[in-house]
């Protein structure tokens, strides 16, 4: 059994963020959201409610969508984390990002990184979701501006774009 470490000390935590293995120093009380934004300076992940209700801080941890405000940074040791910064391929937006942009599925934009990460998780699991499946899967993400319809349509469009890209890739 390992000890509690040195006093109420900081911990060194190793994680993989968007494909890069990195280490950071944190206190057990810091959330993954805090560390992503303040220590790793990945400020694309947004803070809304800080209590798990709004989904603005959604990231993928070992492929699963989680609200990073309800994950302790120390819990992420050894995990693969994907944030909004890891979605675009170089300077090319991916299908979900393009569909949000073209479909004007955002106004103030604070909810957008969370919605995009959640949509990425959905499309990875279910490449052709129905409208009902999209609405259910995105129920943990709140948006004060758009009224949701444009977001749902953007996810449908992203699914089409991705399917088309895959078919082109195959032919």
């Amino acid at each position: 059994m390992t000890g509690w470490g040195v006093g109420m000390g900081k911990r060194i935590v190793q994680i993989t963020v968007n494909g890069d293995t990195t280490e950071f120093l944190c206190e057990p009380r810091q959330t993954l959201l805090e560390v992503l934004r303040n220590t790793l300076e990945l400020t694309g992940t947004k803070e809304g409610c800080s209590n798990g209700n709004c989904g603005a801080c959604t990231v993928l941890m070992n492929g699963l969508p989680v609200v990073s405000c309800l994950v302790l940074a120390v819990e992420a040791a050894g995990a693969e984390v994907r944030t909004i910064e890891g979605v675009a391929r170089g300077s090319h937006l991916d299908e979900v990002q393009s569909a949000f942009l073209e479909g004007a599925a955002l106004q103030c934009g604070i909810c957008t990184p969370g919605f995009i990460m959640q949509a990425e998780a959905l499309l990875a699991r279910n490449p052709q979701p129905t409208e009902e499946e999209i609405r259910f899967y995105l129920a943990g993400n709140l948006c004060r501006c758009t009224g949701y319809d444009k977001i749902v349509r953007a996810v449908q469009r992203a699914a089409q774009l991705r399917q088309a890209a895959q078919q082109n890739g195959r032919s």
Partner: protein
Amino acid sequence: MHNFEYQAVATLDEAVQLLEQHRGKARLLAGGTDLIDQMRIGRHTPEFVIDVKKIAELNRLDLATDGLYVGAAVPCYRITGHTELSRQYAALSDSCCIIGGIQIQSRATLGGNLCNSGPAADSIPAMIALGGSCLIRGPAGSRELPIESFCTAPSKNVLQAGELVVEIRFPPRAPRSGSHYRRMIPRNEMDIAVVGVGASVELDESLSHFVSVRVGLGAVAPTPLLAGAVADALAGQPVNGSSFARAAEIARQSIAPITDMRGTREYRIHATGVMVQRVLEMAVARARGEDANYRVGH
């Protein structure tokens, strides 16, 4: 958030030992979807947080011939993603697919839902209906307890110093049985139950009479409860409207709801009757093998 120490333990013995060592000052962490916010708002200020989700026993998910075994740290998504489990123990899967949104279900565990012991916790009435029991491990060894005996008051339960929940066990499903959990909420998703009802039924060979019935109720008393009188009244009775109505009436009399911002006492009593009837109908349809595809919010 206040300062605390954190340790992820690998074995049950370590968890029990640390709980003992830091008696009253430690709290267990599973998915953190209750605890982390409770620490953030200062409701709980443990000096030690013991992460139990790496303990092998707590991650067990076995659908065996002698029943279903769900480790306390198994997150909801593993339950809803298990097709055969979701078919046989439908009420459990129904409850797990509405605990928070998808992000919460990636982390929220059955053990955490049980041990947080909220009156409106969604999985508890479902576990009660399915005849679940929990295996508890502590300094003095292990004990097993029916789920309906676990919670003692809002946010309170039977766990003694040094004890933790290891797994939840369910008996095998009888032939011609079906189950369902549903809650009444003002929205389709992401809300706390005004009334939550879990039911499990077993029918006779003609599919026309109840052999046995179990109903668990949530959000209508200080703890989730087993409506034992409903079971007694329906055993051996025909499956028809008057049996459903009788079950609803008895359930309404079994509860002690409060008035709060989600509903008045009178509303909860009325809604309990309506929900018991609907949930029993769905459980019967499933027991009969009818196409009973339940869509959340419909």
